[in-house]
């Protein structure tokens, strides 16, 4: 291995990389907000007593969980405008695709959390005269959120990584910018390594936080 590393060409491209990083962060953050909120709603739908509500919600989840994220993104970018004859700007479209994908995964995480709420708590809510929505908001959601938090955060990190897929449909995120620089400067090694490190640096702290949370939950359970 006698490859000469050369990072000089990057100096002229810092601005572009920064712009790309901003797009990536925007995609990841907004998708997470969408996924965290809609995910809980969707989870409640899958637990509904009426099958005609439960069933479509479950189908939505399964479809997003059982097809490639890349395909979902490509589908949204090519097919949505054709089907509905609308133009949506690429970033919004990216958020829509990634957000709905995350919604499906988060709904599953929330559901495990909701089902872990002891039956007695629901009985206690009836005994205390709480209305159903109060029960959901004050008793079920906080407990489900606590149980589901590590998984929700892990899902959040993976949507950051999946957001790199929008580069394939030419949204100018970090991955896309990196790809263009790599091609223009003929320096794939330096560029891709740098991009990989940026994604890694963004994910690592959250991943560590998840591990810490899980350890804490484990010790809490052991008591």
């Amino acid at each position, binding site marked *: *291995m006698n490859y000469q590393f050369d990072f000089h060409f990057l100096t002229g491209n810092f601005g572009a990389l920064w712009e790309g990083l901003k797009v990536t962060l925007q995609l990841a953050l907004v998708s997470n907000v969408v996924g965290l909120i809609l995910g809980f709603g969707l989870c409640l739908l899958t637990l509904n007593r009426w099958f005609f509500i439960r069933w479509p919600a479950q189908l939505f989840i*399964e479809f997003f969980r*059982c097809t*490639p994220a*890349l395909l979902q993104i490509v589908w949204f970018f*090519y097919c949505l405008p054709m089907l509905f004859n609308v133009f949506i700007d690429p970033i919004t479209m990216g958020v829509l695709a990634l957000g709905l994908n995350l919604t499906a995964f988060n709904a599953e995480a929330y559901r495990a959390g909701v089902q872990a709420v002891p039956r007695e708590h629901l009985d206690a809510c009836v005994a205390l005269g709480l209305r159903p929505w109060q029960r959901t908001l004050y008793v079920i959601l906080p407990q489900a959120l606590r149980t589901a938090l590590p998984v929700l955060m892990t899902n959040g990190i993976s949507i950051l*990584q999946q957001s790199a897929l929008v580069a394939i449909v030419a949204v100018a995120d970090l991955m896309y910018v990196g790809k263009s620089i790599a091609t223009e400067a003929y320096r794939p090694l330096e560029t891709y390594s740098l991009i990989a490190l940026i*994604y890694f640096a963004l*994910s690592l702290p959250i*991943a560590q936080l998840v591990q810490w949370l899980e350890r804490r939950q484990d010790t809490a359970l052991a008591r």
Partner: protein
Amino acid sequence: MQLDFMVVFSYWQVLAKGLALTLAFTVSCAVLGSVCGFLLSLLRLSKSPLIRIPTGLYVELFRGTPLLIQLFWIFFCLPVVFGISVPPYVSVVLALTLYMTAITSETFRGALKSIPSEQHDACTALGVASWNKVFYVIFPQALLRAVPPLLSNVVSLFKESALISSVGIADLMFVGQNISNSTARPVEFLSAVAVIYFLVAFPLTRLVGVIETRMLRRYAY
């Protein structure tokens, strides 16, 4: 706009070829990655930091970066670094296997750690020690517990394998995009491809549930 889903069927042979390639990549990388992942999980239990830290870093690095970058890195950078030409198929298998190895080692590690300490106590009480304990009591239970998450990993790998289309491998995703471009019918073809992926992945995810309720409840708890 007129949708005509019947047109999909006239391309079934091409789509089937794409699916076959996707499955071939998934299966081979799943097998390779599971074996490597198992070995890696054992290394990660090592007491020596010289082994534990690099292996841990490998897992974190592959779990903490997009697979797309890993793929591009191996595809574009490996030849540069080593000054040799790597056939596309080899780079793709390498990338998917490394990814599978990383997530699978975590699966096995979690399974090994999930064996309750009472099982270790029982082994001590019966005098079943060291390799006997590991081979007859700990590994079998860990492997049983690892089956459902391992299957989920295979489903992930199956879905993620769609990325190889971006480096020009003619898998199901690639074929689907190609036909939808050439026929200008993305809605029909992309939806059809989505349904094909779904039809493969969905039963596998159901299988995970069945194994958890039937097999594990009987043999692992």
